[in-house]
């Protein structure tokens, strides 16, 4: 078998995994933003399904959004009078976190999908230097703390706070809601000012970043990713490395979009459960586990 042909054969499981994941990501984005009329009418959905928070970053001002954004909802409740924290949203996030961990980032988050698609644009790709990368990853935890703290602590004379993350940073809101509404709604367009351009600049940086490197927003800025990362080590859905099968070839680490040092520690807070490592492992050392059991362990039982 020629080397080139062998490479093609080896690439098949990875391509298959990527295709399945892309289909699930597209389906999730379509379901979460299934209010097609909103895009045509330039309005947002006003039905009761918005009582529920979706478990991913999906702006509730997106014309198609059928549910509420958990980060927006957390801040909306905290910035109102009388409540410092939304137990409702926290409960939803904890339950999804313990069930799936960052699988939600890898398979279901529309903003993750957007970054994945942007990264497919051909051109030179970069790896962030490991020192900056390692330190930068802590930033999302700082942002997570601020998401909880700022709307509740920094309040005006009436006790009302500001949803700081949504207002000054969230590129998902700018892309999914802002750009669309400003384009189709003349009234809103007339209100565009410095704040919009600040957010547009942040979005532009994230877009360029996502073209050049994999998932920069998820790595460094996403408070939801940080939250789910806290559950990744003990979530019911996870992955497992069979040390006895691993030959330390490093292929899994080469394909990992989050640059996880898989051979050292597989269930880190950074793993988005994309399954690429599992697909490239020829020794089948990496497996999916649900609860504490892998498929092989179940078969053995």
């Amino acid at each position, binding site marked *: 078998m020629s080397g080139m042909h062998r490479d093609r054969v080896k690439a098949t499981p990875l391509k298959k995994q990527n295709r399945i994941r892309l289909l699930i990501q597209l389906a999730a984005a379509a379901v979460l933003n299934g209010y097609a009329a909103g895009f045509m009418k330039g309005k947002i959905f006003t039905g009761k399904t918005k009582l*529920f928070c979706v478990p991913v970053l999906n702006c509730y*001002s997106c014309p198609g959004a059928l549910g509420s954004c958990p980060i927006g909802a957390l801040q909306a409740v905290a910035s109102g009078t009388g*409540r410092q924290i*939304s137990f409702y949203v*926290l409960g939803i996030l904890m*339950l999804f976190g313990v069930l799936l961990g960052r699988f939600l980032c890898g398979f279901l988050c529309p903003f993750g999908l957007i970054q994945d698609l942007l990264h497919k644009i051909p051109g030179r790709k970069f790896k962030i230097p490991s020192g900056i990368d390692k330190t930068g990853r802590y930033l999302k935890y700082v942002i997570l703390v601020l998401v909880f703290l700022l709307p509740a602590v920094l309040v005006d004379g009436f006790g009302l706070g500001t949803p700081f993350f949504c207002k000054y940073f969230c590129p998902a809101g700018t892309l999914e809601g802002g750009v669309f509404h*400003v384009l189709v709604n003349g009234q*809103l367009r007339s209100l*565009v000012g410095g704040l919009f351009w600040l957010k547009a600049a942040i979005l532009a940086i994230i877009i360029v970043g996502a073209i050049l490197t994999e998932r920069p927003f998820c790595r460094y800025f996403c408070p939801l990713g940080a939250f789910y990362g806290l559950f990744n080590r003990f979530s019911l859905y996870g992955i497992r490395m069979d040390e006895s099968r691993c030959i330390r070839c490093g292929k899994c680490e080469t394909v990992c979009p989050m640059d996880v040092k898989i051979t050292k520690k597989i269930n880190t807070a950074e793993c988005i459960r994309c399954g690429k490592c599992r697909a490239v492992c020829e020794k089948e050392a990496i497996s999916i586990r649900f609860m504490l059991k892998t498929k092989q362990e179940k078969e053995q039982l």
Partner: protein
Amino acid sequence: MRMKRKQIAIMILRAAAIVLGILFLVIGILRGEPGEILFKAVKICLECIGIG
């Protein structure tokens, strides 16, 4: 032995997270938070889109 302890710790963490998650969810519903969220979510959020 060490592995077993780790597995027990993981199971305790999971159980605690599930119980707390359900508890928080119920408290939030009783406090009327879903209504508050719906009220915010059915209007275009000017802060979210960079206007307000």
